[in-house]
């Protein structure tokens, strides 16, 4: 922002900022419009995709002998509206969507919203700790590598993160299962909870939290144990990207004059790194963490399948292979929404951390 001077002798002062609220409102309005457009696009694409597939939901959801009975097939198609022209089906879906009705899943027979409410917390229970771990480790290790640029520890980190990026997630899942479950027997197999425990009363949908809330400490601990391996795998996958990114972002910051200036002021290394470097390096990290979260969600598909984790990834996988249109649409919409919301948060956070950035 350029300042304005009126006093001849006084030099200048920070110009008064124009009122910010309208900017923010405009920004949000635009983002919401874009989000709506995006969600609409998602419905179109999914609808089109499901309809180019040979075979419809009736085949996927009726028994083989039932398929031989035209009456049963007709009843099914009528029940799910599959006998209507596609554009009508689409309009119908949109209409319900506007009323907050995502339709009923053909494979579970329950409202898609109910399914999402059930599966999303399970996935978040994996994704959130993984993301937090990855962020903390990624930032710390990436920063360390940047500071020790060119030395042995930097090389180790670099190779390590490249290894992480290069490991197939499904293979890693199998390897850790083999090691920690099959060979060592130190971790539980799949699932969210050992069978002797009943799922805790649902508050957040996350077993660890719910069990703790209900005071069922044994169950909470058991749920935590079940989390360890899948979270480990997801963290490994995400942290590699983050480390690389943080490292190069911090390297760039380290070359800035203001870091030299901070040293020149006589500040101890700790302060320079912890305050000056971290603050500036965090901006790109925030950007990438938005993307990393999206990729993490995507990574859950494979990991959940291998660990038998009943989350969104498994649900998505089964919906896709079962051609369960309402579920696929529900998942796609949800993920698209998360994607845009995360991006929005990233942008808002950006503005919060970096005073130079204005929402426009």
């Amino acid at each position, binding site marked *: *922002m*350029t300042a*304005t001077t*009126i006093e*001849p002798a*006084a*030099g200048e002062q920070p110009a008064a900022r124009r009122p910010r609220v309208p900017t923010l409102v405009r920004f949000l309005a635009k983002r919401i419009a874009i989000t709506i457009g995006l969600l609409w696009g998602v419905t179109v694409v999914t609808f089109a995709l499901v309809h180019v597939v040979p075979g419809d939901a009736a085949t996927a959801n009726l028994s083989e002998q039932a398929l031989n009975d035209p009456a049963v097939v007709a009843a099914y198609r009528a029940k799910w509206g599959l006998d209507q022209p596609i554009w009508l089906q689409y309009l119908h879906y949109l209409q319900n969507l506007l009323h907050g009705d995502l339709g009923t899943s053909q494979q579970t027979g329950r409202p898609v919203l109910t399914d999402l409410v059930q599966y999303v917390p399970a996935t978040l229970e994996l994704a959130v700790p993984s993301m937090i771990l990855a962020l903390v480790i990624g930032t710390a290790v990436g920063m360390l590598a940047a500071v020790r640029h060119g030395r042995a520890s930097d090389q180790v980190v670099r190779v390590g993160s490249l290894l992480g990026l290069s490991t197939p997630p499904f293979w890693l899942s199998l390897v850790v299962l083999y090691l920690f479950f099959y060979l060592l027997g130190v971790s539980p197999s799949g699932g969210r909870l050992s069978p002797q425990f009943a799922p805790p009363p649902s508050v957040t949908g996350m077993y660890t939290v719910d069990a703790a809330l209900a005071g069922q400490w044994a169950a909470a601990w058991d749920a935590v144990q079940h989390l360890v391996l899948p979270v480990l795998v997801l963290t490994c996958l995400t942290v590699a990207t983050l480390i690389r990114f943080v490292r190069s972002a911090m390297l760039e910051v380290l070359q800035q004059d203001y870091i030299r200036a901070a040293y020149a002021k006589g500040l101890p290394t700790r302060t320079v790194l912890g305050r000056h470097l971290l603050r500036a390096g965090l901006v790109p990290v925030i950007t990438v963490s938005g993307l990393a979260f999206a990729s993490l969600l995507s990574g859950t598909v494979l990991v959940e399948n291998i660990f038998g984790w009943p989350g969104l990834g498994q649900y998505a996988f089964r919906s896709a292979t079962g051609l369960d249109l309402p579920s696929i649409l529900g998942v796609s919409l949800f993920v698209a929404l998360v994607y845009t919301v995360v991006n929005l948060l990233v942008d808002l956070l950006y503005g919060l951390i970096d005073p130079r950035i204005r929402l426009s």
Partner: protein
Amino acid sequence: MSPEPVAGATVPGPDPIGSPSGPLLDIDDLAVEYRSRARGAVRAVAGVSLSVGAGEIVGLVGESGCGKSSLARAAVGLTAPHAGTVRFAGRPVTPVQWAKRPAAEVGLQMVFQNPYASLNPRRRIGDQIADGLPAGLSGERRRQRISELLDRVGMGADTAAKYPHQFSGGQRQRLAIARALAGEPSMIIADEPVTALDASSQAQVVNLLVRLVRELGMGMLFISHDLALVRQIADRTAVMYLGKVVEVAPTERLWSAPNHPYTRALIDAVPTISARPELPAVLAGEVPDPANAPSGCRFRPRCPAAFESCGHEPPLVPIGDRASVACWLSTNGETG
């Protein structure tokens, strides 16, 4: 505002190509506006009239952000002006957009500030120069013409096969000049062509430009923030402040007897070498944001001589031979 196109050249040269009567480059009441979400509308050039005759070097000076580059880019046709007209050899300059540039306008060329960005790093020098040669030229003629041009700027013919990264900043600027010459220009707009260079390369490039202008009888609008440099080469100098030209005069006269307080302040701020240390005079404040220009005379808030008339905008009026000034102090009778 009553801009008076002031034509003429101190050094006699060949007649202007277009209409023999008018100046070669004629900028009339030009305005350039940028709209950005952050700052709103920025009037970077707020009604400037200026003309350059054949064989004439006109210097344009002013503080950073006063709109010099915006003026140059609009004048050459890289951006569409918001208002006003630019005429080159008598015909209006059309902004370069989707169409190919009309052949008649190729005689108006520009030399850019950053020699590192103004040459395509992935093409050979020769190819880039050839961009400006007529399409019908045979391979042999083309090669010949390229080496001629390179020779003119003091670079060897073998340069044509090389890439820009093999040259220093000063050499690149010379190559950029050779490329501009390929269009056989009669007018060159040079936007801070030496700012990015070392003192020594600066001298080389400036010497080259001035020599070419004199030899080829071209006109040149030489933009710079370095007053001393402009003083060295320009026949006339225009001083710009916040999107407006506040004073134009033959260079020596401008230096010895500036009419605008701003011109005076600029000159006084240049540190000079002398036996006893002598601090340059301080002009208070800095250039205001053009998005938020002061009313009346734009220099009023910083002007040591401001008085009540300055609440109204002073027009640029001629004062004597090929000189104009926009200051109430001068227009109220006195000159100087």
